[in-house]
């Protein structure tokens, strides 16, 4: 059996899910036997190559995330929404109860600051926030979800291990569901 390719991506989230991924500790060696991690915030590659499995952490909050997700969808055979933000927007989505303008004003204009002329940064190199934060499933087809904030390392390992052995994991049956 040839080795699979695994990529992990960090979009609109806190990177906590990736921390939890690292918490699988020595079991990473078992993963490494079955797959090469070709793209991840913890490895060097910049562009997402074609992969068998992509773990996507975080919700879609900006135009850049949107483009990136579409690209990942093209490159990945199996796309996994990784963590509560990717699955149901979670904390990232808490700005959805308000207008984007109010949110930005609260952060940059009305906040107490040394900068007397507070204004919302609009440099062209900055990414543009979407009006609403979306979970991955609202943008692309998602093949599998791992909820949790963050998901337990055991759960992550279970899912990866099953997929790498060409089996479909079932979190419900495995009693590994967790939100928050």
């Amino acid at each position: 059996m040839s080795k699979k390719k695994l990529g992990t991506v960090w979009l609109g989230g806190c990177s906590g899910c990736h921390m939890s991924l690292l918490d699988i500790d020595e079991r990473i060696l078992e993963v490494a036997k079955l797959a090469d991690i070709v793209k991840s915030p913890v490895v060097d590659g910049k562009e997402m190559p074609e992969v068998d499995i992509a773990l996507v952490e975080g919700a879609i909050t900006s135009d850049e995330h949107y483009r990136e997700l579409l690209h990942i969808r093209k490159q990945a055979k199996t796309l996994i929404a990784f963590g509560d933000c990717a699955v149901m927007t979670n904390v990232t989505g808490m700005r959805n109860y308000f207008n984007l303008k109010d949110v930005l004003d609260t952060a940059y204009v009305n906040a107490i600051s040394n900068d007397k002329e507070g204004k919302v940064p609009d440099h062209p190199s900055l990414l543009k926030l979407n009006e609403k934060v979306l979970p991955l499933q609202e943008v692309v087809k998602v093949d599998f979800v791992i909820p949790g904030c963050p998901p337990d390392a055991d759960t992550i390992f279970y899912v990866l291990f099953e997929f790498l052995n060409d089996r479909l994991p079932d979190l419900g049956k495995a009693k590994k569901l967790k939100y928050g």
Partner: protein
Amino acid sequence: MNTIPITINDKKLDVDPAKTILEVCRENDIEILTMCHLKGIIDIGACRLCLVEIEGINKLLSACTTKVAANMVVKTSTERIKKYQRITAELFFAERNHVCSVCVANGKCELQQLGYKVEMDHIRYPHLFPHCEVDTSHPWYVMDHNRCIMCTRCVRVCNEVEGAHNWDVMNRGHQVRIISDFNTPWGESITCTSCGKCLHACPTGAIWPKAIVQGQLEKKPEIISELMEKRKMKL
């Protein structure tokens, strides 16, 4: 005592005809999911989780409000019912802003438990993201409408057990909200006795005591049931 024969999930039982299907199931360790039910207060059949199939009846009926009848044949967990339970759970989550990771009830929440039981890994429907208020005006308690699932257990406990009727429901449809008095701050209520029963009745993190950190919250809905049991015995 007169009993009548009924069949639940192919199990033959002799039961008290005054009981509801739900009561019979609970006594016989047959699992039925509920959200708006709380033993001791009047059932309203609103959450639709306890729906069961009854032979000869076209409609699904709520176990909490339907009395048993002789020779009734009940099924509590067919594929159809399981499918509907999952949709109901998803709609609960999609309706308000249930952000478990920052909720005081995380880990102690009946809604979370429901999600696990129906094996809900994600919510297939778009979240509504309504704007909800958090009422912190009461000196001891907080009412967070983001987490409210409109089970109205607080309303019924306040009215039926405490007799204060501080809580009620305003508006209708998806705009319903729990209110205190004239939709005025809880802390200014002229009817609230600060008894805290609603806090224990609440299945989620919608009502919780101040000065508590995540993980410490303890809700004991069973104290309401025990209280009502004792009152009944006194009568």
